[in-house]
C-alpha cells in the first residue's frame, strides 16, 4: 500500500518539474543572437570590389589583420537595415571595426542609403550576385558576423541588431581579440 501512495504523488511531482522548466524559460531574458554552424570556422576566401569611390572593397585578407571585425551584410532596399543603422553607428563609435557587404545593390542607391542613415563602414564590398553572402551561410539581410583577428567567425547574428543587444555584441567583439 505504501508504494501505491508514492505513485499517486508522481503526477504532481512531474508537473512541478514541468513548471520549473517553463518558469526558467519565462524568466531568462530573450536571447536574439543565433549561434550558427559557422561559428568557429574560418571565413571563406573572397575578394569583393569596392562599392563606393574612395572606400576600399573587402577581402578575406583584410579580416585577418589581428583585430576583430563586425562584418555587416546589408542592402539599401532593405527596411530593417535602415532600422539597424543607428546601432551600427554606435558600435563604430565604440571602437568596433565595422565593415560592410552591400548585397544586390546599385552603387548610387548604396550612396544614398549611407548618406541618409549614416556610414559606419571602414570597408565596403559590393556583392552583386550574393555569392559571398551565400558562401558565408547568410540567407537574408541584414546579418552580421563577428570575426576575430585570425579571420575565424565567432558569432552570426541573423536579423537587425537591436539597441538592447548592443552590450552583448560589444562584449563578444572584445572577447574576439
Amino acid at each position: 500500500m505504501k508504494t501505491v501512495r508514492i505513485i499517486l504523488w508522481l503526477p504532481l511531482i512531474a508537473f512541478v518539474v514541468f513548471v520549473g522548466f517553463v518558469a526558467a524559460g519565462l524568466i531568462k531574458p530573450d536571447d536574439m543572437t543565433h549561434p550558427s554552424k559557422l561559428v568557429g570556422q574560418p571565413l571563406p576566401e573572397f575578394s569583393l570590389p569596392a562599392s563606393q569611390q574612395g572606400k576600399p572593397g573587402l577581402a578575406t585578407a583584410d579580416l585577418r589583420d589581428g583585430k576583430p571585425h563586425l562584418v555587416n551584410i546589408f542592402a539599401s532596399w532593405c527596411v530593417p537595415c535602415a532600422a539597424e543603422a543607428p546601432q551600427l553607428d554606435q558600435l563604430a563609435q565604440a571602437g568596433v571595426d565595422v565593415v560592410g557587404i552591400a548585397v544586390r545593390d546599385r552603387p548610387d542607391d548604396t550612396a544614398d542609403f549611407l548618406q541618409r542613415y549614416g556610414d559606419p563602414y571602414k570597408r565596403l564590398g559590393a556583392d552583386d550576385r550574393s555569392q559571398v553572402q551565400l558562401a558565408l551561410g547568410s540567407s537574408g539581410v541584414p546579418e552580421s558576423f563577428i570575426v576575430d583577428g585570425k579571420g575565424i567567425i565567432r558569432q552570426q547574428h541573423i536579423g537587425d541588431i537591436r539597441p538592447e543587444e548592443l552590450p552583448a555584441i560589444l562584449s563578444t567583439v572584445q572577447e574576439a581579440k
Partner: protein
Amino acid sequence: MIAEFGLAALWLAAALSALQLALGWMALRPGGEALMPSVRPIALAQALLTALAFGALILCFARTDLSVALVVENSASAKPMMYKIAGTWGNHEGSMLLWVTILGLAGGAVAILERRLPERTLIATLAAQAAIALGFFAFLLFASNPFARLALPPLDGNGLNPLLQDPGLAFHPPTLYIGYVGLSVAFSFAVGALVTRDVGPAFARAMRPWVLGAWIFLTLGITAGSYWAYYELGWGGWWFWDPVENASLMPWLAATALLHSVTVLATRDGLRAWTVMLAVVAFSMSMIGTFLVRSGILTSVHAFAIDPKRGTFILGLLVVYIGGALALFALRVSTVKEGSQFDPVSREGALVANNLLLSAVLGIVFTGTLYPLFVEATTGEKLSVGHPYFDKTAGPLALLLVAIMVAGPLMRWRRDEIAAVVQRIALPVLVTAIALLALILFVPGIRVLPLLGLMLAIGVGAGSVAPLWKRNLRRTPLFTYGMVISHLGIAVALAGMACESAFTKETLVAAAPGAVEIVGPYQVKFAAIDPIAGPNWTAIEATLVATRPGRAAITLHPQARMFAQPPTETSETAIATLWDGQLYTVLGKDDESGRWQLRLWWKPFVTLIWAGGALVAIGGALALLGRLRRELFPRGRPTGFLAT
C-alpha cells in the same frame, strides 16, 4: 458605450463566479445544505453575462469601433464582414474571451442539464468550474482587457493578418476551443467526485456525454486545422508537428483515452483512479496548450502574444489548478474504494492496452514538444524537434494501437477465451495478410511505415465493421454504430496518410507562360499570368490547365496575393479535388526574366485524411446521440430502425 457595457458584464460575471465558488464551498460544509439550490442559477447567470460580454466585443468588431484598441490593432474598415466578426477571436484578448465564454457556457449547461449526479457532487463540480472561471476572468480583466479604449482613435485599423482572412478561421478556433474548454467539465467532475469521494459507474455515466461532446469538437477542430494549414500555408503538408498542433493533439489523445476508460468505469466499475487521473490530465493538456500558445515560450505561427507577463500569469493559474487537482488526487484517491478487478483477456483488458498506448503516445508528443525548452534550460542550446523524432517514436506505437483496435471491439466484457477471440479476428487478419501481399507485389519499393500503414488501414477497415457481423442491425444500439464509424474513420484517415506519404509526386520549376510540366499523371500547361484585384488585396494569378488521358481538363488559378493592410504577401494555393487525389498548385516569385516559380503536387487519396477525421467525429456524434437517447428513454424504448 458598447465596450463599457461589455466590460461591466465581464466584471459582473467574474463577481458571480466568485460567489458561485464561495456558495458551493459553504454548501458542502456541514449544515450548508440550504445554500445548495442557489448554485445552479448563479452558474447560469454567469454564463449569460459572459456571453453578453463576448457579444459586445463582436459588435465592436462588426462596427469597426476604432476607439477600442483591440479593434484598431486587429481590424480595418475595408474588411469583409465575415472577417470583421472572425477577427474578434483572431487575436490574443478576443480568443481568451471566447475561451472564458465557452467555459461559462459549459458550466451553465452542466447547471441546467445534469440531473444524474448526486447533488453534492454536482455542487462540488460547479464550484470547481467557478474556480477555473474566476482565474481566467482575472487574467482577462487584469492582464488582457479586450475592451480597452484609445484616447485618440486613429482613422483606420491595422487590419487582420491575411493568413487569418480565410473561412477556415471563422470556424477553426471556436470549434477547437469548444473541445478544449469542454474538457473542463470532465476536470470539474473529477475534482467534484474527489471532493465528495464519489467515484463510480454513476459518475462515469454522467461524465461520458460531456467528454464525448468535447472530443467530437476537438476531432473536428484538429481535422479542420490540419486542412487549413494544408491549403493556406502552401507547403503541401498536412501535419507539421508544430508546438501548437501538438498542443491540440495532446488533449485529444488524453480525451480519447478517457473516452475508453470511462466506458470501463461505467460498464464494469474498473479503472476508477485512472479515469479520474485522465480527466484531470485531459483538461490540463488543454490549459498547457493554451499557455504554450499565449506565452510565446514556444514560438510558432500561432504565437499572437509574446509577452512574459501574461505567460507568468497563466503559469500561476496552471500551478493553482493543475497542481491543486493533482494534489487532491494524491490525497484523496487512495480513499476512493478500489474498483473491480478483471481478466486480461477481455474487452476491458483491450481497453487498458488502448489506454496505455494512447498514454505512451501522449508522453512522446509531450516530451518532443517540450524537449527544446528542456535543452535550452539546461545547456542553452536552441533546437527544434520535428518529423523524424515523432515519426520514429509515435508512428510505430500508433500503428500498434490501430492494430489492437481490430481485436478490442470483438472481445467480450469480463472474460473471454483466446481461441474464440482468434476465431473472431480471423477474417480481418486474413484481409490484412492479403493486403500486405498485394502491396509488396504491386507497389515495389514502398517504405516500411507507409506499407504497414496501408496494410493496417485495409485490415482495420475490414475489422472495424466486424462488430456488426451477424448482429441484428435494427437492434444494434446507435452508440455501437458510432464506435464502428469512428474506428472506420481512423482506418480511412490512416489510408490517406499512408498514400500521401508513399505516392506523392512533386514538381518544382521556374516556368515561363506556355511551358508544359508533368506531375504524376497530369500534364500541366502554364497558360497565362494576369494581375487581378480583390476587396482588400491585389494579386498575380496564374492560369494552369491540367490534362490527363481520358479525363476532362482542369483549370487552376494559384495566386500570389498582396494585402494592403497590413502590407503582407501570401500565396493562395489552387487545389483540384478528384476522386483519386488532389492536384495542389502554388505560384511563387518571378525571376525577373519572365519565368515564375511553380510548385505542383499530385497527392493520391490525400483527402481520405480529412474524410477519415470527419468520420471519426460523425461516429462520436452518433455515439453521443445513442447515449442521450438511452438516458432520455430508459425504459419505453422507441422501436424501429437504429432503436437503442
